[in-house]
């Protein structure tokens, strides 16, 4: 832990390299005290000097827009881990595969990574559809997947570590805050039409009706890629909800906020809380179309803590000053670190031992602050409310305590 903290202090790659070249003996010793025959009993791609992990995201196709940040963050984390000596004295080598936004391709590439390449872990997937496609492969071939996206829950697997929030972590605290802060009683729920918004909307509705004693005055879903929200906006004007609760994703997002603004629905007259807009989406929507609206996320780029400052600086040093970091990008950055800690705790790369060692791992240097792995392979994490400003950054107005992950919430199904 001590080396980890001190290395993170050096935010630029150059400094990291200097540090490593000064300490070659440490990694040598580590490698010798963990002989390959002992740390790898199941035939994974682990040698005396190297361990291979896979990376499986969409670099092409419609999802490339969202997954690029995750790809970058994972590579940054791996680079930093290598710069401080790797895992059990072994440098991490990455095999990058492209899922190409196509779910069968994801399954096929997952199989290739596990069966042919024998990777010790895979950082990957983004949409629930791609995760559902690879899950049977990971369970059958006994692989380890680090999945970064906030998602609908209702899933738990020995072979997956979920580094994003499950739905209740993201939804409940946010609704509590807005109900208290804005004295909100009526809610209009709007989402894209697929599993994540539908499940999230269901949880939100149960919480609004049963716990907050409020009313849902409208609940609607639009096909992915829907671009015309004129009729919806008129219905919102008719129903005058205290809060618009938006779970719109992808290109629809841009149309939705542009048209809201053009129809005169702005933050001075209307409260809007969303769980689907991060800094990445704001790039496409334009900060001026979102000014004053709220997002409920576990991470914002503007978080003011030393871990995050280092992370943001390192990310920008590698990918350019203009790059932005959204919630999922940060969650993706956690994956390689959590894997490294689990391997070191287990003293082995064997999947079963890593899975067994994962619960209760604490990562104190996470950019989002302290996180801890739960028995159910999700993370304890905080929920923050950010208010968007014209420059595309959010001002964090509220921060909850650590929330226990509960992928199968009772009373919300």
């Amino acid at each position, binding site marked *: 832990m001590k080396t980890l903290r001190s290395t993170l202090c050096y935010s630029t790659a150059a400094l990291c390299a200097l540090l490593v070249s000064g300490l070659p003996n440490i990694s040598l010793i580590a490698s010798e005290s963990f002989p390959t025959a002992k740390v790898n009993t199941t035939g994974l791609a682990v040698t005396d000097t190297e361990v291979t992990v896979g990376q499986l995201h969409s*670099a*092409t*196709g*419609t999802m*490339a*827009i969202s997954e*690029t940040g995750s790809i970058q963050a994972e590579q940054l984390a791996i680079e930093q881990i290598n710069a401080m000596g790797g895992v059990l004295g072994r440098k991490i080598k990455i095999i990058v595969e492209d899922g190409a936004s196509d779910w069968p391709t994801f399954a096929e590439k997952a199989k290739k990574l596990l069966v042919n390449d024998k990777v010790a872990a895979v950082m990957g997937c983004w949409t629930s559809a791609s995760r559902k496609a690879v899950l049977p492969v990971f369970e059958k071939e006994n692989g380890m997947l680090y999945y970064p996206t906030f998602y609908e829950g209702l899933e738990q697997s020995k072979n997956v570590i979920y580094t994003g929030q499950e739905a209740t972590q993201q939804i409940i605290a946010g609704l509590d805050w807005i109900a208290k802060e804005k004295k909100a009683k009526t809610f209009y729920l*709007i989402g894209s*039409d697929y599993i994540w918004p539908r499940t999230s909307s269901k949880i939100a509705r149960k919480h609004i009706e049963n716990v907050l004693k409020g009313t849902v005055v409208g*609940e*609607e*879903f*639009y*096909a992915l*890629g*829907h*671009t*015309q929200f*004129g*009729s*919806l*906006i*008129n*219905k919102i*004007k*008719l129903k005058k909800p205290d809060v618009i609760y938006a779970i719109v994703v992808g*290109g629809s*997002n*841009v*149309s939705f906020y*542009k*048209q809201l*603004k*053009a*129809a*005169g629905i702005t933050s001075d007259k209307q409260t809007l809380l969303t769980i689907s807009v991060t800094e*990445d989406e704001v*790039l*496409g*929507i*334009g900060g*001026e179309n979102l000014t004053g609206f709220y997002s409920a996320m576990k991470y914002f780029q503007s978080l003011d803590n030393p871990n995050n400052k280092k992370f943001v600086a390192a990310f920008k040093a590698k990918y350019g000053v203009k790059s932005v970091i959204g919630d999922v990008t940060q969650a993706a950055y956690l994956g390689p670190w959590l894997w490294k800690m689990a391997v070191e705790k287990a003293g082995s790369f064997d999947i079963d031992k890593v899975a067994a060692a994962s619960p209760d791992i604490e990562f104190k240097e996470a950019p989002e602050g302290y996180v801890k792995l739960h028995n159910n392979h999700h993370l304890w994490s905080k929920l923050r409310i950010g208010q968007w400003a014209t420059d595309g950054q959010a001002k964090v107005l509220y921060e909850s305590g650590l929330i226990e992950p509960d992928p199968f919430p009772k009373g919300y199904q």
Partner: protein
Amino acid sequence: MMLAYTTSELTSIFTMQGFAGLSLFSVLLLMALGLAIIFGQMGVINMAHGEFMAAGAYTVYLCSTLTAKFAPAFQPYYFLFAIVAAFFVSGSLGLLVEWGLIRFLYKRPLDTLLATWGLSLIMQQTFRSTFGAREVTPTLPDWLMGSFKPTETIDIPINGVFVMGLTLFITAAVMFFTFKTRAGLRMRATVQNRMMSGAVGINTKVVDRLTFAIGCGIAGVAGAAFTTIGSTGPDSGSRYIVDTFLVVVFGGAASMLGTVASAFGIAQTQSISEFFLQGTMGKVTTLLAIVIILMIRPQGLFASKVRRA
């Protein structure tokens, strides 16, 4: 529930809802015009139509970036020039595609379908490699983004009015071109009887190339206009393509008037059913209506009177 509203509030909602329908109508029409020319007049099924729209949208983005960099004072006006630029960019792309690809496939209509679909994938990936996978936002002039308030409770989005005006202008221009100019006459002649047109001295190859280029250019204008209401990304085009074909096929492939009527019908059905039902159900209702009508009238709303060779 409805009783809780005052008459003036309801009037405002109905006014705005009427506008929403008209606005959707002009969006659909603008999308479909370019395709109506290419599909209707030439019989080419251009699956890459959406990507020509995206090319127009990216032209606006480029113009916006260049203006911000070199002539910030020009910012409020650049958008109008960007639209013209979009027409020429997408139009020249169209010219190139016709020359390099389409002209070899006129006798094999099903192969054009496959070839243009492949082209659309290539173009999408080109956008992605050039501009990045993320969506981009051109900085739009402020005068386009507000809303116009004739009364306290009515908000008419200015970008909607702008798209409507542009659609009217383009439709009028296309009609004028088709029915009042020599080039339009040659185009119609070629559609009606290619052999005879060739025999009387019309260079049908040039006509084809120009028709395709104009269709693509109009797609570019549509794409440019939609930066005000939607997103600009590598796959923006694929979001529009289904609706576009819907409008053209439903209207009757070779009829310009059919396209207008069809866009109007689809827009009103969709916007009204979205208002009274819910999001996805609105779309389902619209598609069901179209399916039923096309079962009864397979040739579309306005039957083509062209003698098919």
